[in-house]
């Protein structure tokens, strides 16, 4: 028996680590991975609550989150590749104009 609070606490810890990665990172690939970590932390909370209430809705939300994350990664990585090809540099602090 594990209290549901423990799962929520773990989820919160992972979410905070992901936030730290987004706020500090200069490398957009690390920022993207941190966003994945945050989505994953939210998923863990969803499944924990679904298990607590014994319903499938939480698990189905996780299913949707995974699909949206896949879409986000496809578009985001395509943008990173394009920016790198045109500028040879993908540091987010220096890529600060929309003109390629």
């Amino acid at each position, binding site marked *: *028996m*594990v*209290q549901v*609070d*423990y*799962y*929520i*606490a*773990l989820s*919160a810890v*992972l*979410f*905070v*680590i*992901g*936030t*730290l*990665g987004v*706020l*500090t990172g*200069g490398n957009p*690939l*690390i920022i993207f*991975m*941190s966003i*994945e970590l945050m989505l*994953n932390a939210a*998923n*863990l909370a969803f*499944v*924990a609550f*679904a*298990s*607590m209430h014994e319903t*499938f*809705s939480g*698990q*189905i939300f*996780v*299913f*949707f989150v*995974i*699909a*949206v*994350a*896949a*879409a986000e*990664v*496809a*578009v985001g*990585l*395509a943008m*990173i*590749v*394009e920016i*790198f090809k045109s500028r040879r540099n*993908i*540091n987010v*602090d*220096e890529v600060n104009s929309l003109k390629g």
Partner: protein
Amino acid sequence: MNSDLIVFLVLSLVSIAAALGMLFSRNAVYSALFLVLNFSTVAVFYILLGAPFIAMAQITVYAGAIMVLFLFVIMLLGAENLPSTKALPWQRPLAVILAVVLAVEALYLLLSRASSDAVITAPDASVNTVENLREMAMTLFNQYLLPFEVTSVLLLVALIGAIVLTRKEKGGQK
């Protein structure tokens, strides 16, 4: 201390260590591999919580497809050792302060609403049967059919968007 709790604590230690490793490793390839480890431990949590289908989706889609895409892009760009150019001086301390604020907030919420009666027992064997999966599919395709269709359109749009973004202009020098 029962066995479920021990498994939970060990796995959560591995999970948090992998997340920190992702954040602090110098090489982006190592970061991606640490993230795969984190996703795998979370998949084990899903199994413990009685969600075997989500666990398999986690392994195949997240740890498999998405992270392979990450590794591919990292190696394609040769971005595994980006020089840490002069970061803005106030950025790092501010980020740490904000993260601490967020952590304190989460801790406060958790402690103020902690309910010791909501426990999750190990799922009984019925969770892993086909019946369980069938019930979940019924929920998905009856109650959540519209969001499911919207998700498929979203994936299609993302696919087309990625292709358009990386396409070579016809004839033009890109």
